[in-house]
């Protein structure tokens, strides 16, 4: 009997997993004992870190897009479709339109994050972001014309994709404006919802020091409540109000409703064992990347490492052996600290991060990784 593995989501986690399984289970796939289907609602794979560079005119959104068909091994069934229902008890997925349901023996949810700007009144009209293609290009158009006034970067809620990206944006904006001789005419303010500038205390302490050196204003305990696009103000639940001329925000994030409807977790995140990545509420279901509620950052490196763990566990289960691979919380992250310098952190569940001194070499390492990312997606790096 053919065992069917279905992966939902063709981002970093889903794509790396599909290619890893194609390699790891090659004999079973060739023999027809196993079938792997990757479902995605877009024919393209998107590498979102490119968007950070778009507002500064350094990259184009197309630099981060490739057809999934080019990235995914031919042994994988690629299905461009949108799931309408996840049925963990029947082990079946349904799809929008007239497409018939698909049964699975193993399901991996890698559906990622979605932006929910409408949670904050006025945010859609008044705020810019670089967490979507259209947001990044709109912000580019504004930023390239911006020469003076108040630039506010507000992190609205966590978790959000790439926890380092808000820090990177203000560090890059500071440096970019200095290079153009405009920094004295621009006040930069960074807001964060808790009492420090980043969720991780070690990174927060490091970043706070850089912000002080660079005259970047900080407002902590700032949970945006509303934006007034006409008055150009943003107010917080804590009662403070900031004027802005250019507002850049990290919008509220959520998962997908289907996960909550399937009883797999709240807010679209799947409750999982943080080591095995198995869903707590259903058998034969895994989640990885942003979708898995593990407490580690929503970052591509996390999805990458988790995909390797899930691939090993699935291969073991399919071969009737005990699954022993576990995820230890490993996270790697480059952090741009300007237009030509970057830091780097590596940490896991047990070991906290210790940001490396910023250097030009690390900046080029980050850009080099961005270029070679496509090898990661193919499962080669």
């Amino acid at each position, binding site marked *: 009997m053919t065992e069917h593995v279905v992966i939902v989501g063709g981002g970093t986690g889903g794509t790396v997993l599909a290619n890893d399984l194609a390699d790891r289970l090659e004999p079973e796939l060739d023999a027809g004992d196993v079938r792997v289907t990757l479902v995605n609602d877009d024919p393209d794979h998107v590498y979102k870190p490119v968007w950070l560079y778009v507002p500064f005119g350094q990259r184009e959104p197309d630099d981060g897009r490739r057809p999934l068909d080019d990235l995914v091994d031919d042994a994988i069934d690629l299905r461009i479709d949108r799931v309408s229902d996840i049925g963990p008890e029947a082990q079946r997925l349904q799809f929008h339109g007239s497409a018939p349901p698909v049964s699975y023996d193993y399901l991996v949810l890698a559906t990622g994050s979605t932006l929910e700007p409408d949670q904050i009144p006025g945010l859609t009209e008044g705020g810019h972001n670089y967490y979507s293609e259209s947001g990044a290009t709109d912000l580019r158009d504004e930023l390239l014309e911006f020469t003076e006034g108040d630039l506010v970067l507000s992190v609205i809620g*966590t978790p959000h994709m790439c926890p380092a990206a808000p820090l990177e944006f203000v560090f890059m904006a500071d440096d970019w404006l200095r290079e153009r001789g405009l920094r004295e005419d621009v006040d930069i303010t960074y807001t964060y919802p808790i*009492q420090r500038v980043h*969720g991780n*205390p070690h990174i927060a302490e490091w970043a706070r020091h850089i912000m002080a050196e660079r005259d970047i204003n900080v407002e902590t305990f700032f949970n945006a409540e509303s934006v007034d696009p006409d008055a150009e103000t943003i107010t917080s*639940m804590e*009662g403070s109000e900031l004027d802005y001329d250019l507002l850049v925000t990290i919008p509220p994030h959520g998962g997908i409703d289907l996960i909550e409807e399937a009883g797999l977790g709240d807010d679209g995140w799947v409750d999982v064992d943080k080591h095995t990545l198995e869903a707590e509420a259903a058998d034969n279901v895994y989640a990885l990347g942003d979708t898995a509620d593990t407490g580690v950052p929503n970052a591509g490196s996390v999805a990458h490492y988790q995909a390797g763990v899930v691939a090993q566990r699935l291969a073991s289960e399919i071969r009737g052996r005990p699954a022993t691979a576990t995820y230890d919380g490993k996270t790697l992250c480059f952090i741009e600290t300007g237009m030509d310098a970057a830091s780097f952190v590596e940490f896991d569940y047990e070991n906290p991060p210790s940001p490396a001194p910023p250097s030009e070499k690390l900046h080029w390492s980050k850009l080099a990784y961005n270029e070679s990312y496509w090898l990661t997606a193919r499962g080669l790096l």
Partner: protein
Amino acid sequence: MTDIEPDDTVDARGAACPGPLMDLIGKIRSAESGDVIRLLSDNDQSLTDVPEWAEEAGNELLAVEERDDHNEFYVEKA
């Protein structure tokens, strides 16, 4: 043992910092003025995070109950 009846409960047991506080803030965001939210957290950092935020936001921390493996925070939205 408190006899406060919460209007809603957030179970953030197992979440790493700042997850419990962010879960509480998220629930308060959609609550009505005067609602009491109960937060369940087994993260020790919540013992400082929650009182600090409640004071900053003008909400009232009505009680903190110590359980065997977690703490319960009762916060009334201003």
